[in-house]
């Protein structure tokens, strides 16, 4: 069990910077997800923590011990690879026990710990098989078993579910969450899938181009995104983001349409400011078909043409045309709609977001 602390952590390959001095403190037993688009440096950061990648600058501290130059084996971590990386020439039992064998553990101790891990993950029947005889989900479980057998301070997961099909992914996601509840270790989990990050993590670290954009609980990053990037990255379907200019207490969009400036931003903007207006599909809905949050104090209604609908059963995504482009909205208790229908749409402006067009930072605080 351990805290992990990154200080000004940097990675460069020659002149190309991959990770630009990130700071992050992870509490003991915390589940942290590093999330971001591919190439944002999240995997590199994880590999630096694992010791598989040299660091170009800064500090990595695991459990109060600086581990900058220690080899992976001296960091007391374990890692689950995207590719699983099971040893194909060993049986499941040998795979699970490999780290103990290398550490020179006694035979009965080894058997006991392998049996424990195998029981937790339901691998008992597979112990004598080789990885090639396992399905994707089983391999995934063996990879996790190999990680927990070591009883590490920190678990590192490098996109562990991205090779699984959608159904299995959801299932394994639940298993990982259960596993964390059981073993109570610090977990650092890299993924590009924001749903995985949201569902699993205590806190989410959103990275872009080697920088941390925001660190926060799933609720924080969802409802109070610090930057335009976070706003667009977290949430599915993504937030509607459109550039506008503040003028006369209104947001003027380039296509000629306008919306009232949300009250909470009145003091934070002045006429002529270039901003990005953001509203989640949940806060822009066909009138009468939204979440009745009770706090709808600032609803703006417009009649808009429907350009396309995506029924999902319990809800329908309605793409309504506003300002010359499609804005996505979430319709609860859906009723049938056709393209071209004109419907009354509500903008819940109290829940809208405004970002500086220049810096991308939220204007909320």
């Amino acid at each position, binding site marked *: 069990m351990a805290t992990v602390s990154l200080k000004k952590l940097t990675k460069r390959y020659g002149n190309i910077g991959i990770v630009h001095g990130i700071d992050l403190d992870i509490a003991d037993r915390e589940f942290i997800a590093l999330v971001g688009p591919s190439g944002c440096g999240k995997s590199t950061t994880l590999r630096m923590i694992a010791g598989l990648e040299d660091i170009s600058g800064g500090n990595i501290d695991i459990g109060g011990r600086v581990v900058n130059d220690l080899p*992976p084996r001296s960091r007391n971590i374990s890692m689950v*690879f995207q*590719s699983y990386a*099971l*040893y194909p020439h060993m049986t499941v039992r040998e795979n699970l026990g490999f780290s103990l064998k290398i550490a020179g553990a006694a035979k009965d101790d080894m058997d006991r710990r392998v049996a424990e891990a195998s029981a937790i993950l339901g691998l008992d029947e597979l112990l004598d098989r080789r990885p090639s005889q396992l399905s994707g989900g089983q391999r995934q479980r063996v990879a996790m078993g190999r990680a927990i057998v070591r009883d590490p301070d920190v678990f590192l997961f490098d996109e562990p579910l991205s090779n699984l099909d959608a159904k299995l992914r959801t299932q394994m996601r639940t298993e990982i969450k259960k596993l964390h509840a059981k073993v109570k270790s610090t977990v650092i989990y890299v993924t590009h899938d924001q749903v995985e990050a949201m569902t699993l993590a205590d806190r989410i670290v959103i990275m872009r181009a080697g920088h941390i954009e925001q660190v926060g609980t799933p609720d924080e990053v969802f409802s109070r995104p610090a930057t335009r990037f976070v706003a667009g990255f977290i949430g599915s379907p993504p937030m509607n983001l459109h550039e506008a200019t503040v003028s006369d207490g209104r947001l003027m969009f380039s296509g000629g349409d306008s919306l009232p400036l949300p009250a909470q931003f009145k003091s934070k903007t002045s006429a002529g400011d270039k901003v990005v207006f953001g509203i989640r599909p949940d806060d822009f809905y066909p009138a009468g078909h939204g979440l009745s949050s009770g706090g709808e104090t600032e609803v703006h209604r417009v009649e808009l043409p429907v350009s396309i609908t995506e029924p999902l059963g319990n809800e329908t995504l309605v793409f309504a045309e506003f300002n010359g482009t499609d804005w996505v909205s979430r319709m609860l208790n859906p009723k049938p709609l056709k393209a071209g229908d004109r419907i009354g749409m509500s903008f819940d402006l109290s829940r809208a977001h405004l970002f500086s067009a220049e810096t991308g930072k939220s204007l909320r605080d």
Partner: protein
Amino acid sequence: MDENASARLTRRALTVAHRVGLFLAMLLICLPGIWIVLSSLRPTVEIMAKPPVWVPQQLSFDAYIAMFSGIGKGGIPVLDYFRNSLIISVTSTVIAVAIGMAGGYAFARYRFRGKSGMFLGLMLTRTVPGIAMSLPLFFVYARLGIIDTHFGMILAYVALNIPFTIWLIDGFFRQVPKDLAEAAQIDGCTRWQAFWQVEFPLARPGIASAAIFAFLTCWNEFALASQLTRSVNSKTLPVGLLDYTAEFTIDWRGMCALAVVMIIPALTLTYIVQKHLVGGLTSGAVKG
């Protein structure tokens, strides 16, 4: 006849044709070997007969008996040759495979300056025919005083085999996913342990095939050996074949008998090692 019956018939006919074709091909491939074995067992008259005598009239092991019966009685120092061949082939194979493993691993795993140039250079050395090297090599060896020594032959064969072993083993290490060595390091291995515990076992088929090829190259090599060896000190079996040529005659039967003696160990070794050649050992390591 309905469609299914005719399709079944066609398939059966194709199977038969396939087997007959395979049999003919195998016969063609095996014929020289069979001919050598046959020739070692029958008199020269029959060997030289035109048209060829296919079914031997009389068989005898005279040639083998003579071969081992010592000088003066039609024998040659076959045990010396055998010992030389074995020492030279095994030693140079072990060295070439060891270097090939180190080199192949480096080419497969590390990035360094001049890598592709170096690799190409190694390959280019294979384009020089061995016989073209024999004269310069002879001069150098003569100056160094290592003509007719085991050391000289081993050196030549190691040099001959290294480019090939590096190339072959490189390919096999490339197939072993990098993640495995990393996983092993996380599991507590040093770099060195990760290599021996995980990467080496998985590349073993490649290393075994490199070893077979290197061994057979040394075992069968004639051009260089005929220049660089002189006496029982270092003469290898292929060079020993020349002992059966006299000024005006060639003892074909004796030569064939010696050839059989040469082939047997090579065949045995290949048979032993081939069980390591099972491919597809890496399947299941990573999502495939």
